[in-house]
């Protein structure tokens, strides 16, 4: 089928400000949006710039704003975002500085990630038998959902609170904090909760649910944020 891709373009070496450019091409309905972007780059215009790697929704490189919604370009099929002869509008994710075309500066995003101590803290001696720590199936299940995060930033850059204030730690960092706060092996929940109780912590979440809708991994992001808020409110982690 024939479609048009309307892309927001910006080259810092030649452009003062971003502009829209349209490309027409022939695609299969089941192609990924990423396939269409690559086809444009390879056959029509090599200057088109984007990040991509695994092309099946695991590496988290190609979050973009497609028809006004955050998605991974490799997980959105053409048939799900366009009719025959239709136009797909694609622009970089919002709230992070654009470096070139779809490539944004991810450093502020990863800085927030690092703020929440995104690693297991356990100062107990390791098991003396040289084996793994034990964890019950239920304890492991407790934080399963938030282990799926691929740090693509689709959630954080769909959040109006983050658009309004880039200092807000954002949903992705809270998801990462959740993954450790509710891990029965971890001992640093209080430190993480202190970070998240700051003015730019979890209370900036207004439960808009954009993050949950944007998550390409199907993580219940707003629910996870709610559980962190509950832990702060009650002082109980369960």
């Amino acid at each position: 089928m024939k479609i048009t891709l309307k892309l927001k373009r910006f080259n810092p070496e030649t452009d003062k400000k971003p502009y829209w450019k349209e490309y027409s091409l022939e695609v299969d309905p089941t192609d990924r949006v990423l396939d269409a972007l690559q086809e444009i780059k390879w056959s029509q215009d090599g200057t088109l710039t984007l990040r991509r790697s695994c092309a099946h929704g695991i590496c988290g490189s190609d979050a973009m704003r497609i028809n006004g919604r955050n998605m991974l370009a490799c997980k959105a099929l053409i048939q799900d975002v366009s009719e025959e002869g239709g136009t797909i509008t694609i622009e970089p994710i919002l709230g992070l500085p654009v470096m070139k075309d779809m490539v944004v500066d991810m450093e502020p995003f990863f800085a927030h990630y690092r703020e929440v101590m995104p690693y297991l803290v356990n100062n107990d001696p390791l098991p003396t038998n040289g084996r793994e720590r034990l964890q019950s199936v239920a304890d492991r299940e407790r934080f399963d959902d938030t282990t799926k995060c691929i740090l693509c930033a689709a959630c954080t850059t769909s959040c109006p609170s983050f658009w309004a204030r880039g200092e807000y730690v954002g949903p992705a960092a809270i998801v990462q904090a959740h993954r450790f706060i509710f891990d029965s092996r971890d001992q640093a929940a209080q430190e993480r909760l202190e970070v998240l109780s700051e003015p730019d912590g979890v209370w900036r979440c207004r439960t808009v649910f954009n993050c949950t809708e944007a998550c390409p991994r199907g993580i219940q992001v707003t629910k996870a944020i709610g559980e962190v808020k509950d832990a702060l409110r009650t002082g109980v982690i369960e």
Partner: protein
Amino acid sequence: MPQYHQFDALIVGAGGAGLMAALHASKRCKTAVISKLYPTRSHTGTAQGGISAALGNLEEDKWEWHAYDTIKGGDFLNDQDAVDIMCREAIDAVIDLEHMGLPFDRTPEGKISQRRFGGHTNNDTHKAVMRACHAADRTGHMILQTLYQNCIKQNVTFFDEFQVVDLMVEAGKCNGVVAVELKTGEHHVFHSKGTLLATGGFGKMWKVTSNAHSLTGDMPATILRRGLPLEDMEFFQFHPTGVYKLGILLSEAARGEGAVFLNDKGERFMARYMPTLKDLAPRDICSRYIFQEIREGRGINGKDYVYLDFRPEEINKHLEEDGNPKRIDAHYLETKLPDIIEFARVYQGVDPIKEPVPIQPTAHYAMGGIPTNNDAEVLADETGRVIEGLYAAGEVACVSVHGANRLGTNSLVDLVVFGKRGGIKMADYVNGASLREINKGDAHKAGEAQLERIRNNNGTERPGAIRKELQKMMDADVGVYRTGTGLEEAIDKIKELQARFAKIKIDDKGFKWNTDLTEAWELGCLLDLAEVTAFSALWRCESRGGHFREDFPTRDDMNFLKHSIVWKNGKVEIKDKPVRITRIQPQERKY
């Protein structure tokens, strides 16, 4: 002038092997990790089914069995001392990952849960054994995340989105790397005593592949350009279960949980070919029989694919047939295999719980690569001479632990075991070595010249068109089935494409984030690697593991129980070296 940096140790690549090396090296010396991707984008993250270690958490197991299976799976081309190291150290490596925080699935007693995987057996009963430690079907994702988390905890230095384009190798010693900062296009000279390469595979020379766009073999190609050899390049694994047409991987864990292959007649054909292990035979064997079914007209609707069936009621039927008391349901599968079920739904519009999934073999894993010894030191030739200060680990390296065919889960075992060994060995070396002089003004020039030639070339050929032709040809002529004639034609075609590559023109002449330029440079890497792959495949006149020659359909231990070592200095030259056999003598491979 390029920017100049100095470290004791450099690690190129931030997947499992690179991060594992970084965790160990950075405790011992001043270390930096350089990666063309953000570390969490690395392809380790897409590994699904598990990482094997003979923990014996659910049934009896021994590392010696794991080693025997690995060697038999590798069609006896593995260096057996290296395999012993890998399978013995796998146990502590997996325990270490748990201690670092990896959220493995758990057994009812709270231990790390394990599942069956292709070619992993109880050596007494020859039945499949539960050896693959897993976190749902995102084990690689959890390994990559856990290692990166620990790098943050340990404050490891990263240069993210820096693409290495040259190695500074002089007089048999490595003095660091030259990299381009993607954000600015500037060149950086990283001067070091030790350098460890961990850049993964190069599956992008094929069209149908499970590999990421970024897997273009930058460092193996650079090794060739620096006059150094690669090993066993004819051995590339085609994984039997790629999503039809796309090549996206559907983990062997599906078959570990009971899924089976079906042909157009609805027959579970692997039971006919491999009566004991059936659908859990190693990957090379399954891929070959899938193509055989297709060639004999039993592909689905006569087409070039078969089914992978993991409907719960069908799995239960097969479990019963096999005398296995286990029974499963849809909820169980959604918990154990959530990602691959979603892949089938998203990319194929097929719900695996309700209908079988169309699959075809997909180019997956390089058994060959940069030759190393058991301490990850890079070898200069077939005699085992070491390049001082240069190391390689993970898929980019050829130790060789995988021989002619890698068993499922062993890629993750390889990268944690040899990433650690390499990181420690490199740190030990740099702590006793002094920094060698380099010419700081000139060091970057060879790498820069490669890129500037591409940027300024005023030809007529589009790199995108050359890449497509390369991939199509490699699928046809350097795939699961190979012939001498087909390989000769492949070599001619690659030479034609290389000549056309000399006449390319790119659209983007800028410096900042010029991926038109870096992609074209990567294409040049793929062309060189395709050439030595086809030459090595033509040289090996036998069939072994992942390399099947229709004109030489049997294994020939008399003439080819040896590794190939290939150079490309002007023209391609191949030498060989013996396989290190310790405990296990080559035998016929039956499952």
